[in-house]
């Protein structure tokens, strides 16, 4: 009930606040929330530290862009295809990567992330190289072209975030979610209980990758232009920061983390050149105050209480 009310309120914001700049910020925050939800499946649920998540975002964006520019594929077909290709990419890159653990996995994924970006930059005939791809079609829904206005994208992203968050919350409490938790807390014990670790890890990577691909397709359609620079390591790190800041594994937390980290720099706009400097200090300060993330421990504590009563 409360969630539906919040969702409706967020949906109505563009009517209450006509400032297009504000809506653009919100649309960006929603895009990050989508990415954070996807990475949360990998890092928060399955406990796989991934440092190359931007690669899946890039795969989704380039999949839609290429399908659209070469074959005239419409957005609504490109969206699931972008998601599918990125999901398959997640599984394929995961196949070798799940053989290593912990910090080593983090480094392998970091390497994959960079390799995808450099390959995209260097495959000039296909991807336009460093200049990227131009003139990607905006979505058209029943004769209405989304165009360059932020509002329709904000609504679309809001629906996607709401839907994915709903799925994630259920996923976490499902048999799969519980198996992920077992795997994350103690892999050896989980395996002795007959949990197929490899298959579950690949599932997390595929789902997480797919969600990033979804976000990538929306991003490409919204911008109309994509360049490899949009998918660098810093992006992977920022999304991870949102997940950790919000609270690993908490669906509400990572959405909050995404909103905080994408809106905070805008709020600091008044400090102009000192903005990112203060942002850096803010990240250190927040982590020192709440090392477990904004909604990390409190949520788990609530769950424990619920289980005890």
């Amino acid at each position, binding site marked *: 009930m409360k969630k539906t009310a919040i969702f409706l309120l967020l949906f109505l914001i563009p009517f209450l606040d006509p400032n297009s700049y504000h809506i653009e910020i919100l649309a960006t925050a929603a895009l990050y929330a989508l990415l954070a939800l996807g990475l949360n499946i990998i890092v928060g649920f399955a406990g796989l*530290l991934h440092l190359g998540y931007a690669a899946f975002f890039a795969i989704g964006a380039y999949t839609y862009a290429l399908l659209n520019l070469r074959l005239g594929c419409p957005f609504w077909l490109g969206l699931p295809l972008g998601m599918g290709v990125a999901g398959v990419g997640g599984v394929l890159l995961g196949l*070798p*990567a799940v*053989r*290593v*653990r*912990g*910090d*080593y996995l*983090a*480094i*392998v994924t*970091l*390497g*994959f992330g*960079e*390799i995808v970006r*450099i*390959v995209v930059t*260097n495959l000039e005939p296909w991807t336009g190289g460093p200049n990227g791809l131009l003139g990607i079609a905006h979505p058209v829904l029943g004769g209405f072209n989304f165009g360059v206005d932020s509002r329709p994208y904000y609504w679309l992203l809001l629906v996607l975030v709401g839907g994915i968050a709903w799925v994630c919350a259920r996923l976490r409490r499902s048999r799969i979610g519980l198996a992920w938790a077992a795997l994350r807390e*103690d*892999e050896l014990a989980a395996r002795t209980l007959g949990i197929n670790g490899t298959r579950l890890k690949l599932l997390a990577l595929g789902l997480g990758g797919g969600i990033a691909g979804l976000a990538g397709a929306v991003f490409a359609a919204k911008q109309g232009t994509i360049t490899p620079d949009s998918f660098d*390591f*810093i992006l992977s*790190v920022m999304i*991870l*920061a949102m997940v*950790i*800041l919000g609270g*690993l594994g908490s669906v509400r937390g990572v959405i909050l983390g995404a909103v905080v980290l994408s809106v905070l720099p805008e709020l600091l706009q008044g400090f102009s*050149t*000192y903005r*990112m*400097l203060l*942002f*850096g*200090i*803010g*990240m*250190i300060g*927040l*982590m*020192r105050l709440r*090392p*477990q*993330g904004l909604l*990390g421990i409190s949520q788990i504590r609530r769950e424990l209480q619920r289980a005890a009563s």
Partner: protein
Amino acid sequence: MTPGDFFFQQLLNGLTIGSIYALIALGYTMVYGIIQLINFAHGEIFMVGAYLGLAAILLIGKVHPGLNPTAGLLLTLLAAAVGGGFLGLVIERVAYRPLRQGPKLSVLITAIGVSFFLQNAVMLVFGAQDRYVPPLLQVHRWQIGSVTVTLMQVIILAVSIGLMAGLQRIVYRTGLGRAMRATAQDPLAARLMGISVDRVIAATFCIGSALAGVGGVLFGLTYSTINFHDGYLIGLKAFTAAVLGGIGNIPGAMLGGLLLGFLEAFGAAYLSTQWKNVVAFTVLVLVLLLRPRGLLGERVAERA
């Protein structure tokens, strides 16, 4: 240029950049070896070191223009080493120590915060555009056949070898080094033996950061331009070098740095410069998949 000379020229180029990678890789590997932390802000310390070197060169030029170039070089290296070491101490104290008992990933966030802070602080002080680093010494080169050896390359090699030998001495021949090795093996047991673990960790950060600062100066003098963004890519490559050699292993970091330098130089020369950076990351991924402990790393129990 004969194919043989070309080969030696690339070997020399690889040796030069590889030595710089090795100096930075040492900081990653020392910190990882002692507290299993990947210090993601380490690349920025290297970058700050490069700018400290620039500031020192400019200052020397203003205050004491006639200074002997060798003395100037030593002063510049010293400034970057002291500045880098001090920065390492501050970062450890402010961003890492308070979170050492907390969740492991939270340190990653503070490291990113430190990176943002340092990048933007340098950008505010020195500007966002590339900065030219004036040469400290006269450009001097020797021709051996058609292979060119520059004075800078010789200096880089000498400084790197000197520092690495010094580090090896500290780690294996001093009380501090023994305390460091003890802490790396078992922090609790080390504490019970009367070792001030906090101080040992701080010293590790300090030494690693000083080496990165020196690496920054050498990088600036070799390539003549520096940018506040340089810390990221060079840091990542140095990290690759540390992993290649076996993270946590000091001789491994040196070996890994040099190998990566060679691979890049030959990759750029015989394949294409465009794919130069792919070489580094492909190596990284392959090493981790085929031999995750790196070339010289000891076999560790599976770390979750």
